[in-house]
């Protein structure tokens, strides 16, 4: 048999009257949150410095999971990304060009390599200082293909099957835009977009498409994956996406 006890449910018993500590904790948490937003810049700088040095001595890699723990974060928009190696990787250059070309990894490695050391800045806020990238200047591949006068922009496609990016022809011809084969003086691993990714040094890192497989010359800029979802197409670091980060290039 069950005994129904209404008191304690229906109306508060007098014993439960007292100080409204709950409300104070609630409002205090809100206030702390607001204070955190206000005090974030110095706090963040301090923590980044501390965690950065801690991460260097951390064999477990757990510091990498902490916010702003330093280093890259993995973002993929596809459900799964196939792996490509020296045998299976191909990069095609086509569209408004005189000589459509397909490169193997060895072909790209045989071309003159350029090494750039710049900061990497993600549009979500993280920044990795002094990161070396090495690869073939995009302008070299464009010249080799013979860009037609009607071409105004470059569209990039990726072998994840989903991601796309875009640059104007002028942006694509910059000397600090690479088809990168190496990062941090190592061959590009799969997680970092290997074996070949785009590297657009002066722009937010979403422009640097991972797993690059296609370069197509087009007559107009076709917005890339994130750009269709609200990000700026001309993604200069510090001058776009409503951010004022230190320029990277």
């Amino acid at each position, binding site marked *: 048999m069950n005994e129904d006890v209404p008191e304690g449910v229906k109306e508060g018993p007098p014993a439960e009257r007292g100080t409204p500590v709950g409300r104070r904790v609630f409002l205090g948490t809100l206030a702390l949150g607001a204070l955190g*937003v206000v005090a974030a810049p110095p706090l963040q700088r301090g923590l980044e410095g501390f965690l950065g040095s801690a991460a260097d001595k951390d064999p477990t890699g757990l510091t990498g999971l902490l916010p702003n723990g330093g280093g890259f974060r*993995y973002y993929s928009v596809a459900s799964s990304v196939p792996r490509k190696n020296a045998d299976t990787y191909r990069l095609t250059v086509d569209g408004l060009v005189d000589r459509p070309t397909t490169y193997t990894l060895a072909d790209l490695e045989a071309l003159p390599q350029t090494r750039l050391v710049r900061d990497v800045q993600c549009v979500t806020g993280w920044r990795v200082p002094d990161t070396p990238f090495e690869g073939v200047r995009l302008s070299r591949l464009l010249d080799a293909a013979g860009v037609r006068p009607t071409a105004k922009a470059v569209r990039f496609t990726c072998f994840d099957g989903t991601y796309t990016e875009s640059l104007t022809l002028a942006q694509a011809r910059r000397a600090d835009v690479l088809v990168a084969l190496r990062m941090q003086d190592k061959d590009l691993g799969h997680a970092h977009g290997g074996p070949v990714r785009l590297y657009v040094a002066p722009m937010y890192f979403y422009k640097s498409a991972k797993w690059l497989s296609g370069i197509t010359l087009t007559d107009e800029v076709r917005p890339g994956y994130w750009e269709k979802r609200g990000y700026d197409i001309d993604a200069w670091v510090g001058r776009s996406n409503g951010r004022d980060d230190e320029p990277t290039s």
Partner: protein
Amino acid sequence: MSLRADTPVTVRRFSRAERWVHRTTAALMGVCVLTAACLYVPQLAELVGRRALVVTLHIWAGLALPVPVLAGLVSRAFRADLGHLNRFGPHDRTWLRAALHRDKRPASRPAGKFNAGQKIYASWIAGATLVMLGTGLMMWFTHLTPLLWRTSATFVHDWLALTIGIVLAGHIGMALADPESRKGMRTGRVTREWADREHPLWRR
């Protein structure tokens, strides 16, 4: 009705409305935490991918998170519980002191319908949820707030997320350790024996 010795006498702890508030809030919080993990932990992000979809899930679960509690306000029992959670009496101070000294004897842990730990948890998680909602909105509507605010909001959102994850694990861990308490939230009823032991001041 027959009174059988092996049937423990039970008392009503939560109404249907209160249990649904808890259930839906827990489900939405679960979606928030899981999607956050898939956005944040590199191994999971690599496994799941589909970033645009995961972001959409995270945003909508987060926006909906306060709705069950707000809807619950139409329930008188739920409003009464909010009152219990808010008010601290002298016995709550005793409870907290015992908790700090790891004194587990029931006699040194007096509690009404909710003990002091549950009260502080409820108030804190409510405040933290709203801070997450506010900072989340600042991150979402990127062109509406000044730039500096957004980076700062991301900072608070990230670190508070980690804190909430740890506190939530504690909440779930304590529930796992107390089947009768879980039964109270699942069925609405608990044994009188449990109620008198864990919440001796509740039914006075």
